[in-house]
């Protein structure tokens, strides 16, 4: 992976030479079409003449537009917005420079709105953490034309790699919340339903803001759960009766309110929701509980809880920055809590049926098979980044990479699954490179209903109807995908090559059983 950086100053200290190539300063004459992607990182020019500064800023806009028009459309292109690190105002009512910078940034945002391969990185998000004298070191500017000070290069690298994670849509999935002195002030068992502090005057007001904030986070698709040492009946009563609470029973996808060890409870929650412990963040005011979780499950994040309730807004912001902020959020994400709730209802339903098949029948499962398009591609890319367990090859793709594959002739289908408990949305996909299955994955929340077999067989039947006969497939082991090691074996594929646990398969469609039970309603969209 090699990215090409367009720049007007020395920035090698911030990116290094291993993974990046650089344009000349302010030079757009060389447009390497074979780079894996591009970064545009222009900084405000150093000049003391206002008119000249504006003119140069305008010329940057033209250059940017020129380069965007000429580079291959399918490749990732990261645009840094601009921050004036060294503003000089001779008169305060002269807005020319600020306007020019705004207009440059507007262009960046417009380009990102209209080109799905262009992603924005807001430089201000980094520079806001510093004061002017740390941002510019004139010694380095004059020695090596470094505008942003190389003294903060390490901080920049950390921040930048975090931004790349956000673009790759990596974030935590689930917050595990304690109740007493965490979601409200006071102890329910001692202070009673009316006595806990929520709403009204401080500190209740701070907890109210905190609950509102968590509700917004939930609306952005982060799953909220409760893990508290309390009597469950007391908590149910407070959820029903206290008029000031914002978060109530239905806002939580799963709850563990009991006197058991919290480590067991968390392991249990992860199992019930079918998510990894490494996607959980544990919030508890009690440092001993945090330490217990930290020691039992180092992969669970256990941030320090603020000592004073008035620190909660700042704490919330830090949680977002560290764990939950992501470049874009899909509609699928936003519906998460509903979907997980429906899932736990399904699990409870399952115990009513004697055998799995009559349970599946009773669900009235509908599977829509949809070819990849502009609307579902970000979701498909996201699934390749996040799905670990039911993922045969664990190839990770960005939406731009997938666009390229489609241009290369790949066929990509996703499935949208619903049943009588609710709509799980887009939760699986298959990618075909000619006669080879490159990727097959399903989100864990739809597993356990043999949907994977129905999906694969329907796709194989489609390929057969298109005149294909031999299809190849692979299983590549990862730390997390052992459960699918024999998926292809069980579905009629034959191993033709095996090394280090990786298996290469073929199936002859003319001799394969491709029948799918009729209780699935399967449609091609």
């Amino acid at each position, binding site marked *: 992976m090699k990215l090409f950086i367009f720049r007007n100053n020395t920035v090698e*200290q911030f990116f290094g*030479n291993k993974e990046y190539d650089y344009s000349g300063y302010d030079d757009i004459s060389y447009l390497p079409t074979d780079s894996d992607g591009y970064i545009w990182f222009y900084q405000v020019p150093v000049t003391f003449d206002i008119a000249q500064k504006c003119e140069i800023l305008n010329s940057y806009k033209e250059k940017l537009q020129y380069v965007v028009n000429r580079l291959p459309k399918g490749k990732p292109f990261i645009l840094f917005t601009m921050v004036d690190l060294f503003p000089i105002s001779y008169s305060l009512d002269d807005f020319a420079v600020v306007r020019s910078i705004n207009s440059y940034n507007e262009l960046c945002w417009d380009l990102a709105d209209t080109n799905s391969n262009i992603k924005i990185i807001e430089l201000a998000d980094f520079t806001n953490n510093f004061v002017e004298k740390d941002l510019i070191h004139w010694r380095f500017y004059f020695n090596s034309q470094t505008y942003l000070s*190389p*003294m903060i290069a390490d901080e920049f690298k950390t921040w930048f790699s975090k931004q790349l994670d956000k673009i790759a849509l990596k974030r935590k999935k689930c917050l595990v919340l304690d109740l007493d002195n965490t979601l409200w002030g006071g102890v329910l068992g001692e202070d009673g339903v009316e006595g806990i502090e929520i709403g009204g005057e401080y500190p209740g007001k701070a907890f109210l803001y905190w609950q509102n904030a968590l509700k917004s986070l939930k609306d952005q698709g982060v799953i909220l759960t409760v893990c508290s040492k309390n009597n469950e009946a007391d908590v149910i009563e407070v959820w029903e009766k206290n008029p000031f609470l914002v978060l109530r029973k239905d806002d939580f996808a799963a709850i563990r309110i009991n006197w058991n060890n919290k480590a067991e409870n968390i392991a249990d929650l992860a199992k019930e929701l079918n998510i990894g412990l490494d996607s959980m963040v544990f919030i508890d005011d009690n440092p001993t509980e945090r330490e217990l979780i930290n020691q039992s499950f180092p992969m669970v994040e256990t941030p320090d809880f603020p000592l004073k309730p008035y620190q909660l807004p700042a704490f919330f912001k830090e949680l977002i920055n560290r764990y939950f902020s992501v470049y874009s959020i899909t509609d699928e994400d936003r519906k998460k809590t509903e979907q997980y709730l429906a899932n736990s209802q399904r699990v409870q339903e399952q115990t009513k049926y004697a055998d799995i098949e009559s349970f599946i029948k009773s669900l009235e499962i509908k599977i829509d098979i949809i070819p990849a398009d502009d609307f579902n591609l970000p979701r498909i890319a996201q699934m390749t980044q996040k799905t670990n367990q039911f993922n045969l090859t664990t190839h990770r793709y960005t939406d731009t990479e997938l666009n390229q594959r489609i241009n290369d002739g790949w066929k990509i289908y996703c499935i949208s699954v619903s049943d009588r408990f609710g709509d799980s949305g887009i939760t699986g996909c298959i990618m075909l490179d000619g006669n080879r299955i490159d990727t097959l994955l399903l989100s864990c929340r739809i597993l356990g209903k043999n949907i994977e077999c129905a999906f694969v067989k329907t796709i194989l039947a489609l390929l057969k109807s298109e005149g294909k006969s031999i299809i190849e497939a692979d299983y590549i082991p990862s730390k997390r995908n052992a459960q699918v090691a024999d998926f292809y074996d069980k579905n009629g594929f034959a191993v033709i090559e095996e090394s280090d646990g990786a298996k290469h398969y073929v199936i002859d469609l003319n001799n394969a059983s491709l029948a799918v039970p009729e209780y699935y309603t399967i449609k091609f969209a």
Partner: protein
Amino acid sequence: MYINDLIAVFASCFEQTDSSIFSPSTEFQDLDEWSSLTATILVAKIESAFGVELETEDIRECDTLQELFDVVKNYMQ
């Protein structure tokens, strides 16, 4: 400050060169990855770590890490 502290700072300026090769007798100007750019990174890192503002001249006059250490130490006194 000990020479190992300086060597650690020095090694952190490199991406591709294996840090285990650095010793007081390393003639760093001959390293493949050494460049004027590495020199500015080194100047910045030495300033953060030891509070010493080296000139690029100072570095140019050194052959080995031991000599560089002596220069930095000299500034600190």
